[in-house]
Structure formats: structure tokens, C-alpha cells
């Protein structure tokens, strides 16, 4: 817990908070200022809008610890504000509320809009207010109320821009002395961190184009195809790609347990994508057909942290083709399908899947190529994805879909 001092509605307050506690919870639960409403709790609905150092902000995605030394104003702090008094009257006159849930946030945002932009010609109130949602669909009344306050003209003089004012998020460096809450001393010597696996490559990885087919979602399963060509004869590629252990070793982030007696595969995949990290543990099976040079890998896994579960299937088949100088080469065609359930499935951005799977496929193909060019059994670490900030692995299929699926739902 961290002791936190800030000013709320003109009064200094000190509270004990955990770093993860957001400002809205401190206001409601500890200071009992329940006028601040919590709607979506992830920065979409605007019900929790408050002022921090005079600018509106969403208190559900602003952590309280970050407000040390800030001046916070909630709906309760506007009782004596002349502009808000006009806004209240206008909301009453225009019937701008029904259930009242969105109203505190709506009024704080509306007052701020009038404060900043009352003099703006052709002010588009609907667009400006689009960050505050009303589920009673009372927008007509809300817009009319704001229009009427705008028509009266600004009661408060527009705040002159202070050139010396902090340009970052409030409250900035001038607020209070710097506090390191529960964290280690910032001056601690930089320990050598576990560097991302560096390929002890005998040759530099060469780029390999990966074709990704359209991504479709059928019955909750995301499906796509990937194909690439390796400039190695099919026998050599199959020698590697028929062995799940060696396939897994070409996937950054994937660790496979030693093979068990029953042929089942088990392992773990570390995923790091932007701020999202996950570690999927799971198991699966591999079925190979040497004559057709075809492999089917199926599996399922669970992320302990989020409780998300994933299941997937990858099928790949090798075929003869010709390289650039009519040298023997191998075409690898993959059909991949996966489902994801649980918290990670919430983050649905299907448009990102294609980019992601293309990069995963490319890193895999480049590593296979490197390994086939490496003499003997030289250790070749997987080619990292995207400069190391995205470590994604796939046991030829099964876990790949999980993380692609991080972005896989809906079309937001």
C-alpha cells in the first residue's frame, strides 16, 4: 500500500492505496464521493469523467497513485460553479437525463466543452460529446441542453494558454516530490536482463516471403492458410519438419518438454505482444504421414495468468517446387485453425491477425531455413519477431492460434 496525498474538491486528502487501484475507486470507496459513476471500467463510456488539474479525464483508467499531488474535482465539487449551475438548469429544462447514470460524467464533459469551445463557430456538439455514452438514448435532450448553454455565451473567460504549463498528463513534475511507491530504488544498478535469444547463426537469416490467405471465422474458429518456399530439397525439409521437437525449436517463445513414451506433446509458449504477456501451457498430438510428407498437429493450452484457453490444429504438407536457379526447393502449405476462450478472447481486433500470422510464419520459415543451412547440429535460436518485443512461438500450429487469436474476435 502507498500513502497518497492529493486535493479533492478543494480539500487535501491522504489515503492508503494499492498501485492497482484506479482513481474512481478511491473517490467512491474511500472518500465516499459516489457521484462519480463507474460504467464500463475500461475507458469507453465516460461515466467516470472527473477533472484532474482542470482538464477532464477518465478516472477508471487513471491510477490513483499517478495522481499524487493533483487537484481532482468530482461532480460534488461543482456545486458553486457558475457555468455548471447553468448546465444543471439546462439539463433540467431540456430533460437531459432519465436514469442519471451517465449524468455526472456527461455534465462534467459538457461543461468542459462549453468552457473550451463556446465561441467556436459551427460547434459539433454530438461529435465533441461522443466519448460519453447514454444508454437511455437521451442524446437529443443532452445536446439541446448543451446548445442552450452555448447560446447564452461563455460565462467564464476562456483560459489563456500558459506557455509554462506542463504539457504532459497532469499533474506532472511540479506536483510533489517524486515517490517510488512499492518499487525498488530507481537508482538500482541495471542488472543484465535475460537478453532475447540471440541466434548463434552461422549465416544471417535471409528473408522469406510468406503468403497468408484470407482470415475467416467459422463457428468461433479462426482459420487461415500460410505458404512459403524454402530453398532446400523436400527430403531435407521433411527431415526437420517431420519431427515436432525440431519444429518447436524453430518457434521463438516455445519450449517443448522431452517426448513422452505415449507420443503426446507437452510444453509451454511465452507470448509477448505489446503490453500483453501470456504463458500457455498445454499438450497435444502429432500425426505424420511420411509418404505424403504431411503432418497434423493438434493441441490445447491454458494461460495460467488470465485463465484463457486455446485449442488449435495445424496441418502442413510439403511439395516439390523449383528455386530461383531451378534448384530443388520445397513449398510448405499450412492450414491453421484455432479457437480462444476467456479473457484474452475479449481483445478482438481481427484486422491485426493477418499481420501477426504473417510475421510468425516468416520468423518460423527463416529459422527453418537457417537450421537447414547450419552445419551439423549447430544451435540456432529462433529468429525473433519484430525486434524482440514480440516473442511468439508456435508448436507448428497448436499454440499459434492462441495468440493470433488475441486479436481474433469481432471486427472492432
Amino acid at each position, binding site marked *: 500500500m502507498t500513502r497518497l496525498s492529493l486535493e479533492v474538491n478543494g480539500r487535501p486528502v491522504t489515503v492508503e492505496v*494499492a498501485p492497482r487501484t484506479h482513481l474512481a475507486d478511491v473517490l467512491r470507496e474511500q472518500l465516499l464521493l459516489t457521484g462519480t459513476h463507474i460504467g464500463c471500467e475500461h*475507458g469507453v463510456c465516460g461515466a467516470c*469523467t472527473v477533472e484532474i488539474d482542470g482538464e477532464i479525464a477518465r478516472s477508471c483508467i487513471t491510477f490513483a497513485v499517478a495522481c499524487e499531488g493533483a487537484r481532482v474535482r468530482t461532480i460534488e465539487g461543482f456545486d458553486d460553479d457558475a457555468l455548471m449551475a447553468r448546465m444543471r438548469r439546462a439539463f433540467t429544462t431540456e430533460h437531459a437525463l432519465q436514469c442519471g447514470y451517465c449524468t455526472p460524467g456527461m455534465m462534467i464533459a459538457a461543461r468542459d466543452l462549453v468552457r473550451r469551445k463556446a465561441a467556436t463557430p459551427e460547434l459539433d456538439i454530438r461529435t465533441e460529446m461522443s466519448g460519453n455514452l447514454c444508454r437511455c438514448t437521451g442524446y437529443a435532450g443532452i445536446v439541446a441542453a448543451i446548445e442552450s448553454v452555448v447560446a447564452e455565451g461563455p460565462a467564464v473567460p476562456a483560459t489563456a*494558454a500558459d506557455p509554462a504549463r506542463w504539457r504532459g498528463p497532469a499533474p506532472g513534475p511540479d506536483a510533489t516530490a517524486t515517490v517510488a511507491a512499492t518499487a525498488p530504488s530507481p537508482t538500482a544498478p541495471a542488472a543484465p536482463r535475460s537478453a532475447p535469444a540471440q541466434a548463434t547463426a552461422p549465416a544471417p537469416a535471409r528473408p522469406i516471403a510468406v503468403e497468408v490467405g484470407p482470415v475467416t471465422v467459422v463457428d468461433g474458429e479462426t482459420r487461415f492458410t500460410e505458404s512459403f518456399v524454402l530453398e532446400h530439397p523436400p527430403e531435407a525439409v521433411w527431415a526437420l519438419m517431420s519431427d515436432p521437437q525440431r519444429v518447436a525449436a524453430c518457434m521463438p517463445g516455445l519450449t517443448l518438454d522431452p517426448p513422452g513414451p505415449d507420443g503426446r506433446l507437452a510444453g509451454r509458449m511465452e507470448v509477448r505482444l505489446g503490453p500483453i*504477456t501470456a504463458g500457455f501451457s498445454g499438450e497435444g498430438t502429432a500425426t505424420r504421414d511420411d509418404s505424403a510428407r504431411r503432418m497434423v498437429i493438434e493441441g490445447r493450452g491454458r494461460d495460467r495468468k488470465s485463465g484463457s484457453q486455446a485449442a488449435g490444429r495445424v496441418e502442413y504438407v510439403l511439395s516439390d517446387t523449383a528455386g530461383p536457379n531451378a534448384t530443388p526447393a520445397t513449398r510448405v502449405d499450412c492450414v491453421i485453425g484455432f479457437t480462444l476462450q476467456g479473457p484474452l478472447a475479449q481483445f478482438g481486433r481481427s484486422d*491485426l491477425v493477418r499481420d501477426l500470422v504473417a510475421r510468425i510464419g516468416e520468423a518460423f520459415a527463416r529459422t527453418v531455413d537457417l537450421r537447414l543451412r547450419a552445419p551439423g547440429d549447430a544451435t540456432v535460436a529462433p529468429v525473433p519477431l519484430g525486434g524482440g518485443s514480440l516473442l511468439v512461438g508456435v508448436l507448428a500450429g497448436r499454440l499459434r492460434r492462441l495468440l493470433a487469436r488475441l486479436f481474433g474476435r469481432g471486427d472492432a
Partner: protein
Amino acid sequence: MKAAAFDYARPDTIAAACALLAADPDAKVMAGGQSLGPMLNLRLAQPSCLVDITRIRDLGRIEESDDAVVLGAVVTHAAIEDGRIADPSRGFLPRVARGIAYRAVRTRGTVGGSLAHADPAADWLSTLTALGAEILISGPHGARRHLPVGDFVRGAMSTALEPGEIVDGVRIPRLSAAARCGFHKICRKTGEFAEGMGVAVHDPERGVCRIVAGAGGGRPAVIEASRGAGSRLLARLVDAEAVREALIEAGVAGDEYRMRVHVAAVRRAVAEVVSP
């Protein structure tokens, strides 16, 4: 939902921030937290420690030179919108800033945070790529380097930042008086993630003509004319079929609907630049 537990550190220098990040691979930088906050609340992200960089004075800086302006990483979209920065773009940056999410997000969301998060749908990613901006990066032990925005972004939410490094600012070249810019994004709902984004910058005096298609799922796609060929390129890109071909060549992909959205966004941005 509530975020999972994390530690919190609030360094007051860039060096201290880099040291904290270098010491803990699971630590995460937070500036305004307007993208990270929701991910934390949804528990998509569960870092061990948040390193709050918004009290680092250097990161709020504005540096002007003859040919460029540097914005510190934690300068907010609202500060740009309100004209509280030296503007190298003759009004283009404030205009783009105004369209980012919502005011209550813009007051805390930062330009450096947006770039480091590297969401393909982010406005600054495409806009600053089109303007030819450079990302300034600070690392452990005072190391500094810079990269063009286009090289900094490796893919969706993936950047060239190494462990212990932070974005400390962005250097934006000054446009000349004759420069023209166009911007258009297509969203289902105002302020939501864009489905398509077109940015066009034509600055004949500096020999720059760059058209960027953003919100495509990966890094921004760039169509660029060599010096002196800008007007010709723009004239060609008035035509929808020509735009579609150029986008496909630049790596933009998607189903028919998405392609139409990208083409429309780019054409509208180009139209602003070529309109009399």
C-alpha cells in the same frame, strides 16, 4: 474489472526509468495510460511493475530548431490540440490531435505513448510517418539513438525498442510554406479505432511527397514519390483504381470491404492536398 496487482515506480529522470526497465523485463512503461489502462483493467496485460514516466521533466520538453521541432514523449494530444506546442506542421498536427479518441482521453494520452504502443489504428503512427518524423530513443547508461517512425514500427504493437529503452521524444521536420497536408480516417463510431486512415503530405520545396495508409493491421503502408515527382503521383492517385493498385503494391491487404475503406481514406486525404 480491476487491474491485477503491480508495483509502481515514478522515476524523475530518463536514466532512472531506463534502469528500472532494464532491471525488470516484465516492467512496463506507462505515460498517460489511455491504451494500457484498459488492457490492465481487462487483465490482458499484467506487468510486474508500472514505470510512470509522466513526472520526468525532460519528457515534456519542446525543442525548436530551424528545420524541426522536437516534442517530448509525454506531450499530450490535448497540448497539441490546444496549440501549446511549437507547431512545425502549420496547423496539421493540432487538426489530427483533435480527432484522436475523446477529449477526456486526449488530456492524458501522449504522443510518445501512442508511438511506443504502435497500434496500427493510431493517428500519430500514420501521421508522423507521412511527415517523415524521427523517434528519439533513450536507453540504459545514457545511450541515445533515433530512427525514422517507419523503421521504428515493426508490425502491429511491435517496435524496435530494446529492453531498457524508452521513447523520449519525436523530431518532426518543419513543413515549408507551400506544403499541403491531407488526413482522413474512417471509424464506425467517432473516436473508435479507425478502420482506414489516409495521410498525404506534399512539400515540393523540400522534395517530399508521401502518402500513408494506416489502420491496416500492420505497419503503416507508404507510397512515396521521388523528388520532383510528387505532383505526378498525386494526380495519379485521384483515381480509385490507381490508389488500390498502389496500396496493394505497398503491402496493404484485406477483404473487399477493407480494401474499399483503405482506398476511400487515402483518396480523400489526397483530394485535400490536390484541391485548389
